[in-house]
């Protein structure tokens, strides 16, 4: 071991193609040994651990459409894949219209990590623990994907297939994520439970979003997503059902929290046992639902 001990990254070639076509072509021609590179905050960890053994890292950060944030009042928000989490959280339109996303971002790791980390990277890494994924799901995010067949859209709701697994194929590059304008009066809450106050991964994460909705018998649409308690980030439909059918009472909120616990299918891991995670899913869902209910003015 050298004096300057530094677990080096394994050997790979760094490529920076000039167009999306070039990038998709290269990735499609080297399946299983080439990977797109955004912030690198998951990639470099896994490469040093020997889990990812790619021979090529394809830097896609400079490609068309990847570095912009744009917002139109009637249409919604588009965040380029390469935009850092810090930049997203500082954007005035995001803070005003998508505050739940800002709340989630601010729990991720540290400020200096968020200078490099991206929302799209968080999504494509597809960890069930991804902090920003719940907010992206509840804001009905849609991914723009450039692949060998050109451009297509992938709704976030059907994107995740398992831990680290998504519907993407070799050659696919996510260029941006789009969100529609949230319904009027939307409020939300993200509770991240880690081993410490800040900086850790989520043992359990609960994201709740709600808004007045006269098409629901209860007068409200309230949705809940769980992190770290299933093979994928989990939107619990039963919570929405429970809180849409009848007037919302404290009892109904408790029932909804119970439904969240029942939907959770956690495993034991180094950060917590499955049983503990189930109980925390219930308790933290209770708190988050209560917080949103209060924000809705009740």
């Amino acid at each position, binding site marked *: 071991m050298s004096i*300057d*001990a*530094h*677990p*080096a*990254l*394994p*050997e*790979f*070639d*760094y490529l920076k193609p000039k167009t999306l076509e070039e990038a998709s072509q290269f990735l499609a021609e080297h399946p299983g040994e080439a990977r797109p590179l955004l912030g*690198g*905050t998951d990639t*470099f*960890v896994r490469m*040093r651990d020997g889990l990812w053994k790619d021979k090529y*890292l394809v*830097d896609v950060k400079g490609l068309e459409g990847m570095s912009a944030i744009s917002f139109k009042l009637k249409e919604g928000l588009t965040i380029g894949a390469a935009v850092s989490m*810090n930049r997203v959280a500082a954007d005035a339109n995001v803070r005003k219209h998508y505050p739940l996303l800002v709340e989630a971002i*601010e729990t991720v*790791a*540290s*400020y*200096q*990590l968020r*200078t*490099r980390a991206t929302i799209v990277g968080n999504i494509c890494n597809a960890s069930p623990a991804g902090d920003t994924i719940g907010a992206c799901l509840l804001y009905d995010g849609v991914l723009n994907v450039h692949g060998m067949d050109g451009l297509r859209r992938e709704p976030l709701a059907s994107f995740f297939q398992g831990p680290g697994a998504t519907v993407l194929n070799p050659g696919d590059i996510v260029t941006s994520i789009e969100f529609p304008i949230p319904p009027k009066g939307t409020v939300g809450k993200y509770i991240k439970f880690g081993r410490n106050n*800040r*900086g850790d991964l989520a043992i359990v994460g609960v994201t709740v979003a709600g808004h007045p909705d006269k098409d629901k018998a209860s007068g409200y649409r309230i949705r809940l997503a769980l992190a770290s308690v299933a093979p994928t980030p989990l939107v619990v439909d039963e919570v929405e059902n429970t809180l849409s059918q009848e007037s919302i009472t404290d009892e109904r909120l408790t029932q909804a929290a119970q439904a969240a616990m029942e939907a959770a299918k956690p495993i034991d891991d180094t950060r917590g046992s499955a049983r503990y995670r189930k109980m925390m899913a219930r308790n933290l869902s209770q708190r988050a639902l209560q917080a949103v209910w209060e924000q809705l003015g009740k």
Partner: protein
Amino acid sequence: MALHRISLTLNGELEQVDVPSNWTLLQMLRQTLAVTGTKNGCSSGECGACTVLLNGEPVNSCMVLAVECDGAEVVTVEGLADDGRLAPVQQAIMEAGGVQCGFCTPGVLISAHALLERNPSPTEGEIKDALVGNLCRCTGYFRIIEAVKAAAAIKV
């Protein structure tokens, strides 16, 4: 493995370096450019001992490829003092006694300096949030936080 010729500005000076694809910014700083103030603590972007400014913003240099820094401006702890005059965070951390072994200190100074650039009058909570990614095993953080408060007062 390919070599890439890159140019960057380091603490105000233009540097041209040939780097392998897999080298990190941290490796290039310590091993090629011989600015060893920046330390390696964890090699995984968690401890912040390797924190430097990249285009004005703090990053974990162990998590940035050297080749990604072509055309970039990098500031390390060596670049905080202005012609020998210590930056407020440097002066304040000495006066507050916020240094013991000193290993976390370069990263702390960079993160704290960047905080005061973007938020000249931070609350204690904002200071703590800004330093989440700078771990210290020695001080218990109290005097580091006091130092940042004092530095903010110097600037104001």
